[in-house]
């Protein structure tokens, strides 16, 4: 699907959302039974990083109770992303040239600037469906699937879960599993891990010789991975004001987990880049997560606090603390501040660069997203209802991410370079329930 087509869809969705209030008012007396039976939530979100990625995402969520607790829910997500993304190479005091992932052209990066590939552009359509129904008086089952397609990526998944309610529905145990199949088919192919990233045709006698050298680093046109998840959860209602959820999850990923768009700089003892190589990650990853959430209903507000600890055999350990406070302000309106604090340790094979005189390790990635990093999110949401009784809300969030120095000794000119730039983003979102 072409970008402009999806952008058109999203623009249409935006118009729908913006004019929804008008439509709701006009059609309040003629609303069909079909709409009465379905709960339809929608949202339009704009995500924008400073000088990097921007995304526009539209969501339509559908839910219908077919009585006796037989519930169907579905979701349609359309998003469009564009902008620049760090390619993994270090900044240098000189201009650098890189080949685009397609292999068809080059781009240059100014001296002392973080190398960003500015051709990041994709659109995605995602469809989910979930069927939940009672198996017996105390046992509920749920099954679902998801399809997500973008230009160079396909993800298919199925899931199933069973839950058991006991103790007057104050205690609930659940066990679920999920299987996902992901296939990536980047334009230009999948590079061979650790091979040289050929970047400058001027160094070759002809364009044909450059193309031949570049093609020799491409392994195949596509690769895939499989993800197995298991999640065990306990929900406990403690008092008429307090509820707690505890989840323990394991996840196993097998297949191609390397990022085909990322490279790593091989740096000389003077700090200048000798060359860049395609990154390499292990072909499996085993993750465990421990999640706890509590909600407490004060007379004046509802506190929602959650904490997640995640660990894996790549040695990425993370802590996530998050809280939302729902504060009713008038009859139907409310304010909802939101804060999230995230801290992550680096993967064992993360390195912002490698030294050219050393032997190249089997696995290496300079992707800052698997390095040491901290992030904080601050947000505020305001919600109310239209005259027709349809809830709407507006949300504004600020996301700030800082990469920590991983402790790799910087040779020569790298001492004057910013190898760990921060990333900040703004999120603006409008929600409307039909």
């Amino acid at each position, binding site marked *: 699907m072409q970008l402009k087509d999806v952008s058109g869809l999203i623009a249409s969705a935006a118009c729908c959302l913006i004019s929804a209030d008008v439509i709701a008012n006009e059609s309040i007396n003629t609303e069909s039974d079909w709409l009465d039976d379905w709960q339809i*939530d929608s*949202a339009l*979100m704009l*995500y924008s990083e400073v000088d990097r990625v921007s995304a526009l*995402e539209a*969501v339509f*969520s559908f839910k219908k109770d077919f009585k006796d607790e037989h519930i169907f829910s579905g979701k349609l997500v359309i*998003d469009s992303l564009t902008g620049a993304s760090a390619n993994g190479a270090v900044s240098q005091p000189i201009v650098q040239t890189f080949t685009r992932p397609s292999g068809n052209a080059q781009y240059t990066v100014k001296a002392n600037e973080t190398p960003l590939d500015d051709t990041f552009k994709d659109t995605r359509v*995602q469809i989910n469906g979930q069927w939940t129904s009672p198996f017996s008086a105390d046992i509920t089952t749920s099954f679902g699937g998801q399809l*997500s397609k*973008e230009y*160079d990526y396909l*993800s298919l*998944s199925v899931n199933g879960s069973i839950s058991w309610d006991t*103790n007057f*529905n*104050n205690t609930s*145990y659940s066990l679920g599993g999920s299987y*996902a*199949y992901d296939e990536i088919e980047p334009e230009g192919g999948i590079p061979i891990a650790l091979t040289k990233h050929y970047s400058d045709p001027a160094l070759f006698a002809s364009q044909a010789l450059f193309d031949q050298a570049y093609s020799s680093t491409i392994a195949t046109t596509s690769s895939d991975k499989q*993800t197995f*998840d298991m*999640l065990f959860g*306990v*929900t*406990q*209602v*403690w008092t*008429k004001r307090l509820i707690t959820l*505890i*989840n*323990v*999850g*394991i*996840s196993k990923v097998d297949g191609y987990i390397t*990022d085909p768009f990322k490279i790593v700089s091989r740096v000389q003892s003077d700090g200048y880049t000798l060359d860049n190589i395609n990154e390499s990650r292990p072909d499996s990853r085993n*993750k*465990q*997560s421990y999640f706890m*959430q509590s909600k407490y*209903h004060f007379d004046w507000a*509802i506190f*929602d606090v*959650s904490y997640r600890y*995640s660990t894996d055999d790549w040695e*990425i350990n*993370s802590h*996530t603390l998050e809280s939302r406070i*729902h504060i009713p302000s008038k009859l139907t309106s409310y304010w909802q501040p939101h804060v*999230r604090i*995230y801290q*992550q340790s680096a*993967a064992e094979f993360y390195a912002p660069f490698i030294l050219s005189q050393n032997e190249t390790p089997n696995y290496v990635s300079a992707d800052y997203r698997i390095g040491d*990093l901290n*992030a904080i999110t601050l947000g505020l*949401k305001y919600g109310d209802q239209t005259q027709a009784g349809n809830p709407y809300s507006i949300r504004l969030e600020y*996301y700030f*991410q800082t990469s920590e120095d991983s402790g790799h000794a910087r040779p020569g000119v790298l001492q004057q370079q910013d190898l760990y730039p921060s990333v900040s983003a703004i999120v603006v*979102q409008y*929600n409307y329930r039909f």
Partner: protein
Amino acid sequence: MKIIISILLTITLSACANIGPKPWEKGLLAEEQMTLEANAIDMGLDDHIYFSKEGTSGGRSFAGGGCGCN
């Protein structure tokens, strides 16, 4: 082993039978914002952002695959 211990611990903690309100005392719990699924769309969008910007995902729900977000 850590997983097994965690599961046993959560079962043990929750096995405090008879804890919790009676059905007629659940008025506050029935409010939409007290459900664990409240703000589902916000959290779904947030998960997409964090999945593409950070090294870990999941916990609340399946980590899954999902997208080639960069």
